[in-house]
Structures are given as C-alpha cells and as structure tokens.
C-alpha cells in the first residue's frame, strides 16, 4: 500500500521533499501547452501514464508515473495469470486476486495523477490536513436506488473518536422507509501520518490497521448478516513520489472478512462467506497553501456486502463498485461531505460534519 508506492518511487523518503523540490511556479506551461498536455494524458496517456507530464516538460514526474504504472501492470499479470491459467481455481484465487487488484489500483492512481497534474497548476493545488481533531460527528442522508429492495431513503450518522493513533468509529445507516439497518463499529490504529492531538504530520501519508464488525438487518426480507473483518490501508502523498505530483494522493488497502448469514431458521453462520476486501483510491486536496479545506477521492471498492454491492448486468459477479467522495470544512468546526457510489445499486448522499478542534 503506502509501503508499495514508496518502494517503487526508488527514492523512498521518511519525510516529504523540501518545499518546491521539482516545482517551479514560474515554469508553468502556457495555456496551449497545458491543453495539449491534458489531451495527451488521455490519449495516449490512458495507456502510457505520464504522457501528460512528459508533454509539459515534467519528465522526471512522467518517468516516475510510468514506472509505477509498469509495476501495477506487472502485479496485474502476476495476479491475473494464475487465475486465468487455473480457471479461477479455488486454492489460488485469493492471493492472486489481492495482487491483481492492487496492481489495478496502481494503474488507476498513476493515470488519474497524470490527468490531474496536467490540468491543475501547482499553485492551485491543495494541501493535506496535518493533524486531526479528536472528535468528529456526521449526520446526513443517503439515497439508495436498488429496485430489488423496498428501501430508498436512509439516515446516516457516524461518530469518530481519535486519540493519538487510535481511532474508533461507530456508524449507522437506518432506512426511513423500510425495516433495514446497518450498524458498523470500526477500531483502528494509525502507525504514522496525521493523528489526533499530536504534532503535525509532515504530509497526508499514513498507514493504518483496522478491524470492524458490521451487523446488517434486513427485517423485511427476514435475514441478517454479521461481518467481522480486518483491513490494512495506507495513503501516500504523491509529492513523495515527485514534487510535481504535489496536492494528490494514492490509497491502497486490502483485507478479509467473514460474512455470516442469519436466515431466522438455520443457525447463524449456516452460510459463512469469506469476503475479499480491497480498496484503491486516488484523490486531491482542496484549499490553498497553509489553508487545507478538504479532499476529493475517487475509488474502487471490492466489497460486495454493503448497500451498493458489486457490478451486475455486464459482469459475472466478481467486480466491486466505484465511488466518488469529498469532504470540506467551512470553518474550524463545521463542514460537509458528499458521496456517490455505483455497483449493483446506486447510492448518493451527504452529511453535515462537526469537529471539536479544542486541544
């Protein structure tokens, strides 16, 4: 995850680069060259990640992106070949799928970085929040479109408690128009990166181990699920890869869960389905220098057990879902977030956020 991206950079750093390394505000491309760079980042950039940066003369950054893309492709082949050659054999699929999925994640991160980097001038990019509050509360609404179920409207609430590297997050989704509720409690430890009530982190890079339990009651359909899981995730500020990639970040994570089904008849755990968890994200920070405001992230999530589930119709059940999320702070205490996800169902919504920034 974060370690993988650091490794491939070839210049792994324990701290972010000196300010302005590789960045020359006076060397921004002309409008025409920037336009050409954006187009190049799409074609042939969709296949040659870094083409946009290369076009605008930021060749070191371009080479770094291309190298990471290559490693992602290698991981995809390394993971995909055993699956193809064995016909998705039951004994090799798990490990192979994780490797392949992370490879796809690197691929997605490098391409989006190239497009964003070609599009947005360095001076206009945001910065991460160097520290976190010890308390955040979210209250909001979600709309879920899934014609196979009766529900559509949900009240969403979450509480996030942080102390140093420890994080506790209880969260609920309660249907307003059906007997359906999803409750999740997550506990995590962040080894490094922005933490609560500590000195500022050098950037947004972090590594975190989490464990969660989710209970989901489908009372109308008369079943429920209980899912314990373990997940390790990380974020790498791409400025660590190269200064020209400042303002962006990549995220990778994987884990495993066990989904226990309760059909109000057979004993709980009659069906105990292993769950492969993987999430790949790319995003950018909002706000100007020294005034971080928030962030936007696009992601792929391999989960099949939440409201959105995995893609159907043109798929064979294996893919997960995609999503876009953003959060922003209006002032020291209040902000909002928004989310959109698409898979077997579609979900969209937003929440008001409150944070306690007192020391």
């Amino acid at each position, binding site marked *: 995850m974060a370690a993988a991206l650091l490794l491939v950079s070839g210049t792994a750093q324990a701290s972010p680069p000196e300010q302005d390394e590789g960045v020359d505000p006076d060397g921004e491309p002309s409008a025409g060259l920037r336009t050409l760079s954006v187009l190049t980042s799409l074609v042939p950039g969709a296949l040659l990640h870094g083409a946009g940066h290369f076009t605008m003369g930021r060749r070191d950054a371009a080479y770094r992106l291309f190298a990471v893309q290559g490693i992602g492709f290698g991981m995809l082949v390394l993971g995909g070949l055993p699956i193809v050659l064995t016909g998705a*054999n*039951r004994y090799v699929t798990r490990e192979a799928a994780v490797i392949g999925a992370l490879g796809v994640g690197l691929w997605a991160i490098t391409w989006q970085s190239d497009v964003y980097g070609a599009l947005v001038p360095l001076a206009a990019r945001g910065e991460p929040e160097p520290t976190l509050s010890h308390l955040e509360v979210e209250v909001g609404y979600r709309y879920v479109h*899934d014609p196979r179920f009766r529900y559509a409207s949900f009240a969403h609430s979450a509480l996030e408690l942080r102390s140093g590297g420890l994080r506790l997050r209880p969260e609920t989704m309660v249907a307003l128009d059906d007997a359906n509720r999803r409750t999740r409690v997550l506990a995590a430890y962040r080894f490094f990166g922005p933490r609560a009530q500590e000195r500022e982190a050098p950037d947004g890079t972090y590594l975190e181990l989490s464990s969660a339990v989710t209970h989901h009651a489908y009372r109308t359909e008369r079943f429920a699920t209980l899912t314990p899981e373990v997940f390790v995730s990380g974020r790498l500020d791409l400025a660590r890869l190269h200064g020209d990639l400042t303002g962006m970040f990549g995220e990778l994570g994987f884990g495993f869960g066990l989904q226990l089904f309760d059909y109000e008849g057979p004993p709980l755990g009659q069906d105990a*389905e292993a769950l*492969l968890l993987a999430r790949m994200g790319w995003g950018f920070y909002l706000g100007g220098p020294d005034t971080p405001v928030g962030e936007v992230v696009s992601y792929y999530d391999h989960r099949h057990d939440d409201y959105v589930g995995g893609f*159907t119709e043109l798929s064979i059940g294996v893919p997960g879902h995609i999503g876009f999320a953003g959060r922003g702070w209006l002032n020291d205490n209040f902000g909002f977030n928004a989310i959109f996800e698409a898979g077997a169902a579609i979900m969209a919504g937003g929440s008001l956020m409150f944070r306690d920034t007192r020391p």
Partner: protein
Amino acid sequence: MRSCVFILIAVTAACTPPSEQRAELDRQVGMRAGGGVEIAVDDGLAAVTHLDEAGARLWCSAPELVIRLRSDASRPFELELFNTMRDARIVAIGAAGEAMPLEEEDLGTATRKRAMLDLSAGDNVIHVTTSDHGDRAPWRFALMSDVQSGIGEVQDLFRAMNAEEGLRFLLGAGDLSSDGTREELERFQDELLGLRVPYYTTLGNHDSPQAGLWQEMFGRGNFRFVFRGVQFTMLDSASATVDPLAYAWLDGWLDEGLSRVHLFAMHIPALDPVGVRNAAFGSRNEAGKLLSSLYRGNVAMTLYGHIHSFYQYDNAGIQAFISGGGGAYEERLDGYTRHYLVIEVGADAGIVNTDRVAIE
C-alpha cells in the same frame, strides 16, 4: 416528431438493464399470432418458433404443456413439437369441447413430434402430457451446464446420458454457448438431436448478449413447471442478479411449491462457496434476500452452473450443487473433469439420490 420517439425508445432500451429486458421479453414467450391463428402456451412453457395459417412449431421448455389455439376458421393444422418428451401424448379439444382426432408422427428423433389435426373455428386446446403423468414414484433426471467451447465433444456426454436407465429429461443451468450467437445456439439445438431426452434449461451469462434471441429460440429464462408432483423453478441470474419482475414471479412460484418437493436452478449462484472469488451475485445482500425466500419456500435443492467445476455445499440450509462440467474451460487442479449429475427424486420420497457422472 417520429424521429424523436424512436430516439427516446432507443435511449430507453439502451438504459434498460439487460436483466430487465430479458424479464420483459419472457412475458411474450409462448404467444404469437399470424395467418388467422393465435397461439398461447400456458405459463410460456414453449417458444413459438414458427406460426402461419398451416401450422406452428414449438420449442418446449417443460414435459407437459397446455397450448391454446384460436382460429378464425376451420382449417387443417400441423403442430410440431421440438424438445419434447419421448413418450409425449397429445390430446386436442375443439371449440365445442369435443375431442379432435389427430395423427401423430415422430420426426426421426426421440424428442421431435408432429401432430396433424383439423382446428375448429374458435378456441381449441392441445394438452401435451406423458405416459407417467401423475405417477408419484421416484424418477431420475440429469443436470448439465456450461458447454461453451466444449460443444465439439458434447456428444460424449449425450452418449453417456442415453445409456442411463430411466432418465426422463436433462435439466440445464445455462451457458450452452460461448458468445450467445444465433449460429452457436442453432448448433446446440442440432447437437441435441443426439440426445434421447429433452433439455429444459435457463440461460447463462454467455447466452445472453443478444437481447431476445434466447426467448426466440429456447423460451423463457424465468419459468417453472411441475412433473410427476415435483416442481422445478428456473430463474434467470445471467446478469449476476435477478430482475425485480422475476422476484415477483418467484414469490408466487414459491407459494405454489410449499406443499411439493421443489427444486430450484439458475446459472450464477447466489453465493460462491469460495467467497473470496465471488463468482456469484454481485450483491451479497441480494443473495441473502433470495436464499431467505428459498428457505422460507421450503426448497429442497438448489442447482447452479457458471463455475466450471463441481461443488457440493449448503446455502440457507438447502442442499446446493454447482455443476459446470459440460465442457467449458475447466477449473484446473480441482480433481474434476467433464461431468453431469443424475438426481433421483420423488413427489413423496423427496430427493432420493444425487450422483456425479464423470466423463474422461
């Protein structure tokens, strides 16, 4: 204005999920009009592949059918039944309720028959039954799915099935073809001439790309039939989901099947026994919904394809089998080769026995 309507229809069709398109097309299966004749097969249990003033051809999806023919005039009529039971018996009732004489002939193969009759003006009813209709003693059927690129060797499986004692029909859980083209599906129907029992099947993800082709050639993707007191429900899960319209049908079929031995089959399983692979429903929660319904519907056995191997497990406490051994690219290193299942079942005895028959 007309071009705007066409564009709207095209856009709507493009936005309509394939599973919904197929469910809507299922509604039309078994109904056709032409040449002064209207035909309707009860419950859509046959595809009307040809109809004109002189005759009709049906591809049967069940052992027993009720076919309603409305004719605007008395006329000689030739009814061809493809994919029918070897011992199918055809009884025709005219518009006045009278039994109509008819001449039957085999079409050179065990599963194709022709009946020549004189339709009366008005509503005629054709009953297709079997010699063992109503017999509640145990009997046997086979299950085979996922042929695809193995079509060239499918006769190996058919020869083995032909040698099985007492098989009444072959049940299928989809993926007959690799790409779902007309040529491939026609090839499969031709290969079925080598099988001495009919093949009643739903479709798989490989059979579904061309909207409407399956319904035109094979019939419904979602259907149910009862044979010798045992109910079979076939559901279209080719899109790793089931359409809401099909769920509405399923509710009624599960109610009907509460007092029967009830077997359920679809292509993509609700849950993959190898959870981390998830070659199953895209949504685990939809899987839970379906399995909860099947459990409460007292379903005795669930049968799936899609995974090119053999798995025996339980889902929601119901016996489950994945049998994808029809010849498609196999799951390697699993110890299984091409195979089919033979299941013995009885209306009173329930599931008596299940055997896997391997073909080297």
